[in-house]
């Protein structure tokens, strides 16, 4: 019982995730700045931002439903934190592995997007409404290729559990090469999930101010921001667990591997963000359905064929 509480609150739960998310936010911003030949923020900047936001006044719009408006950021953070518990960190096994946790994690990761949508919708601001609608439209476009890209390795590994997939590829490391197209699809699609350039349409600062979050301020916004940062960690940890399964028996070494893998994924995501312009909503739909989805389907077919050949 005590151990479970420790796991949920401190490691690998809320506290560790929070600290690691702040570190990730720093790394992301610093790298982004260095890619643009700037100095970038100091290491404590995300923490300072978080603390500052906590101290600011929270304003709730008059037309908004108070309870829903306040609970949405907490919901988003809770969903992300819960998802993290099912992602392996120090070994091939996560904390509470079970058959089918991949699907649970993917669905838990959808909840923040729904929270952004509802948050924007309940803000009763025009910008937020447009941002909310965009968030939902975007969800329908990237979710399908992302899920399919995640499921393709699972088909090859013949298991629906993240730990099982990790263990399978740790045993047969060469099979990872088959999954490279799925890895690329997942990297692109998760850029949409994380609402980063080129798919940052729901917040598009220069178009709709900051979209869904335009009415959020103070503590609520801090929690939302935290949820987004945590989502970045969870998604990169998930991709690392599925597509880059190099594991060590020693948990300390395994943990080091985890950090290296997630940072590599972050660097790729950051490079992706730095090198493109934001697309329009209809261009994004077109891209996701016409390029990413067929690519993911082809991957699934290949994996099915390989599976058949192996059997």
């Amino acid at each position, binding site marked *: 019982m005590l151990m479970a509480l420790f796991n949920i609150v401190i490691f690998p739960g809320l506290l560790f995730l929070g600290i690691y998310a702040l570190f990730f936010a720093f790394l992301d911003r610093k790298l982004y700045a*260095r*890619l643009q*030949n*700037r*100095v970038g923020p100091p290491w404590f900047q995300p923490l300072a931002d978080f603390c500052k936001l906590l101290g600011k006044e929270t304003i709730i719009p008059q037309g908004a439903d108070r309870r829903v408006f306040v609970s949405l950021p907490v919901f988003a953070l809770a969903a992300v934190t819960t998802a993290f518990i099912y992602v392996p960190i120090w070994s091939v096994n996560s904390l509470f592995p079970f058959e089918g946790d991949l699907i649970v994690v993917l669905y838990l990761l959808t909840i923040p997007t729904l929270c952004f949508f509802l948050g924007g919708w309940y803000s009763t601001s025009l910008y937020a409404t447009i941002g909310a609608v965009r968030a939902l439209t975007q969800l329908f476009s990237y979710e399908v290729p992302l899920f399919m890209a995640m499921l393709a390795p699972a088909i090859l590994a013949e298991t629906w559990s993240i730990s099982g997939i990790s263990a399978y590829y740790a045993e047969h490391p060469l099979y990872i090469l088959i999954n490279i197209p799925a890895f690329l699809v997942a990297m692109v699609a998760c850029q949409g999930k994380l609402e980063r350039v080129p798919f940052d349409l729901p917040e598009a600062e220069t178009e709709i101010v900051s979209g869904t979050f335009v009415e959020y301020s103070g503590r609520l916004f801090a929690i939302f921001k935290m949820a987004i940062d945590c989502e970045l960690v969870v998604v990169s940890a998930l991709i690392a667990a599925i597509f880059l399964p190099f594991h060590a028996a020693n948990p300390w070494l395994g943990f080091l591997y985890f950090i290296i893998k997630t940072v590599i994924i972050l660097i790729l995501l950051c490079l992706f963000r730095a*090198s493109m312009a934001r697309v329009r909503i209809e261009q994004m739909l077109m891209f996701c359905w016409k390029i990413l989805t067929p690519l993911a389907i082809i991957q699934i077919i290949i994996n099915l064929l390989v599976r058949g050949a192996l059997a």
Partner: protein
Amino acid sequence: MKKGPGKIAGFALEHVFKKPATIQYPFGKLKLEESYRGKIEYDAETCIGCNICARDCPAGAIKVVNVGTKEEKSFQCRLDVGHCIFCAQCVDSCPKKCLHFSPNIELAAFSRDNLKVTM
């Protein structure tokens, strides 16, 4: 170059290992040219109090007053840095060249009264 997305990635990656182009202001400062038009400096010795500078100033920021007696004149220049637009027309207009500009641009103050300088 072929068409395609993410063309700038290589260019940007190169710059990660280069010195940043920005400077963190209060800790590091850019070197300004000596000819930069900053705050006006005044030399009371050579001034004859003709006030041509005041007549040509577009913002009405400068004024030279006689603080001595009629016989023994001694001049003071009163400059409102808050109004000054740093065009340095007064420097050009001055017949005795007693005004000149300095590359001093750090002129922020907490109150408008602090911006009024007597030289």
